[in-house]
């Protein structure tokens, strides 16, 4: 009933839509209809597709396509919207920034890698690559010869004007006018926070316009450690692609790999044993605790509480020891495989987890004594960088940061995977939306993760830890999207396969990109110190933004 109605409504709204598949419901719409259809999809009461989960550019050979995965936060249903252009010389598609704010950086990414210009996008600069980069890497006919793009010996000049393409429609005649938006004027006091800066948690660069101590505007420049993982995966076999997911958000290594494994398993129709599901869930939760502990440490350090930093690291070490014992790695665990896990868990793991579950709560109490309760810390957190519900959804800010804005977006609850449907835990939701809310959500999530671990650790069923797979894994033709709740938001994997042993297109929906897209609105009007607090509370990890 529900599913049919979506199809009906969409076809009613857009008669030219061409249904490509039913599950998931996919329609292809000609590009010029998008500016009309997109707002309707969002505003229609029955559809209410207010969340653009994942936006993927694909080079289909003849056409350059963009795939929008839409989800309704109210109804929970999903649909896929596709559009494309066959003009490879001058590809132009309409922008949906006005409808879904998260399209801002995503469209810039698509422009960067496929060369599709988005009409009416306010800022069509390249996002990751240098401005003088030749070619568009994710196109299939891209020339990867190092002679085309030699290693530059000079630093890139910062460009302060952003091109914008505006469409003027007069009857059937569409004029594209190129305009220039000024990012920073010549008179502005612009300070670089990054790329090498202690508070950016990696190689990220904020250009900050200051008025004394007050932040007026933040411009995010990323791409300093972009490794082209999505491009690399196109020439790797499926088992080989797994090794790269651990290197995206290295603090959610297990969860990222879990998502990719689930996506491939779904495509193969492979069922994993209960034991594997239990192990994966336990490892996911341990990763989450480790990540939140690290969040706590680095956040305290950003706020100048250097001692707290060491307490967090001291306790995270215990989780890393568990990983080392079972997985063989501490940071890059490399544990999930297609159909199971690399090796069975260590016999000590259960005991270690039980000890840890008892050990951590008193330590958390100390954390709260040292930092959370502190009047200085509280005043620096409360009421700072408020992200409201609508902005969170529109920007696609998932994970603890989204939940602090009152958005119930926990994939573990919404689309349970692993054994999350068999354990009791609460989705931590707060309605403050400020730095304090984001901080407290994470602190409370540690307790919930401990609760999950407590329930799982004694009940790991016997069974095999690796399902039988073919020696060469080929996915059938089609496209799949699976997501997990990674430590800092929804991490999704979108695979498009043409039936080969290499993926045709593999896209990672990183939770980090939406996070940095809200730094500007959150930090505006605050002090420099607030910018640092906002950045710390969003807890982005740069390799996850620069995939």
């Amino acid at each position, binding site marked *: 009933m529900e599913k049919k109605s979506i199809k009906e409504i969409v076809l009613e709204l857009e008669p030219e839509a061409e249904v490509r598949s039913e599950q998931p419901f996919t329609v292809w719409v000609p590009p010029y209809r998008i500016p009309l259809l997109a707002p309707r999809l969002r505003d229609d009461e029955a559809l209410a597709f207010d969340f653009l989960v994942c936006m993927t550019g694909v080079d289909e050979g003849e056409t350059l396509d963009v795939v929008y995965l839409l989800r309704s936060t109210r109804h929970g249903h999903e649909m896929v919207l596709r559009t494309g252009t066959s003009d490879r010389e001058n590809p132009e598609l309409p922008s949906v920034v006005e409808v879904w704010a998260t399209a801002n950086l995503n469209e810039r990414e698509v422009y960067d890698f496929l060369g599709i210009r988005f009409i009416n996008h306010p800022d069509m600069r390249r996002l990751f690559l240098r401005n003088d980069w030749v070619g568009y890497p994710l196109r299939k006919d891209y020339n990867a010869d190092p002679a085309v793009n030699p290693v530059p010996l000079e630093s890139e000049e910062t460009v302060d004007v952003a091109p914008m393409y505006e469409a003027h429609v007069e009857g059937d005649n569409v004029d594209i006018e190129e305009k220039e938006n000024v990012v920073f004027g010549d008179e502005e006091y612009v300070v670089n926070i990054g790329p090498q800066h202690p508070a950016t948690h990696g190689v990220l660069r904020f250009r900050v316009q200051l008025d004394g101590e007050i932040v007026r505007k933040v411009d995010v420049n990323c791409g300093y450690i972009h490794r082209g993982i999505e491009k690399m995966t196109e020439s790797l076999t499926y*088992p080989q692609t797994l*090794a790269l997911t651990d290197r995206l958000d290295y603090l959610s290594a297990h969860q990222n790999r879990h998502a990719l494994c689930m996506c491939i398993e779904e495509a193969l129709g492979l069922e994993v044993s209960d034991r594997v599901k239990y192990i994966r869930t336990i490892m996911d939760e341990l990763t989450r605790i480790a990540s939140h502990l690290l969040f706590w440490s680095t956040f305290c350090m950003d706020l100048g509480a250097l*001692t707290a930093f060491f307490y967090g690291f001291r306790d995270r070490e215990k989780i890393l020891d568990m990983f*080392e*014992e079972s997985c*063989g790695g501490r940071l890059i665990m*490399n544990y999930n495989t297609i159909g199971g896990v690399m090796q069975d868990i260590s016999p000590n793991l259960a005991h270690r987890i039980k000890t840890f579950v008892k050990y951590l709560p008193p330590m958390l109490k100390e954390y709260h*004594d040292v*930092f959370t309760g*502190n009047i200085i810390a509280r005043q620096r957190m409360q009421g700072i960088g408020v992200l409201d519900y609508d902005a969170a959804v529109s920007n696609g800010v998932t994970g603890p940061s989204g939940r602090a804005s009152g958005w119930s977006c926990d994939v573990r609850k919404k689309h349970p995977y692993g054994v999350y449907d068999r354990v009791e835990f609460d989705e931590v939701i707060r309605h403050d939306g400020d730095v304090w809310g984001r901080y407290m959500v994470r602190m409370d999530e540690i307790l919930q993760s401990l609760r999950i671990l407590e329930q799982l650790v004694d009940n790991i069923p016997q069974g095999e830890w690796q399902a039988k797979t073919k020696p060469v894994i080929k996915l059938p033709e089609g496209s799949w999207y699976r997501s997990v709740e990674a430590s800092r938001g929804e991490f999704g994997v979108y695979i498009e396969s043409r039936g080969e042993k290499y993926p045709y297109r593999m896209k990672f929906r990183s939770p980090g990109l939406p996070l940095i897209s809200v730094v500007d609105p959150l930090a505006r009007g605050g002090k420099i110190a607030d910018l640092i607090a906002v950045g710390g509370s969003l807890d982005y990890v740069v390799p996850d933004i620069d995939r």
Partner: protein
Amino acid sequence: MNSFQRYITSFWSGLGSLLVGMKTTLKIFFRKKTTECYPENRATLVISDRYRGELVMPHDAENHHKCVACGLCEMNCPNGTIRIESEFVEDENGRKTKILRAYHYDLGSCIFCQLCVKGCPHGAIEFRNTFEHAVFTRSKLVKQLNHPGSSVVKKQ
């Protein structure tokens, strides 16, 4: 009056929160320290068996390894870390067999994904939990895993 009251209470509660923090840090000041005194504690250091430090090729007492130079590990490696040099030799029955001449492994570019070990049909290679790999030049990280003069173990 109300704002004055708030002024006074916020002062005392703020001061209290600061004192709680100071009490906690002082408590930790006298607690046992967690620093690991490496390298003095080398003897007692626990590195779990599964820890992936480097790829090795175990040899038995007669200097035999199990590698038949099939090249699966080389194919499986996503990073081009393994390079196998092999040659064809005729055995006494006149049959040509492929034997391993040199197994080159570049520790510097290994991403420890375990696909080589998983893919090996003979269990000829494995990861070992050694971890002190610091060298002064990168070329020293390229290692030959088969020992000099070693040969593949004879099938019974």
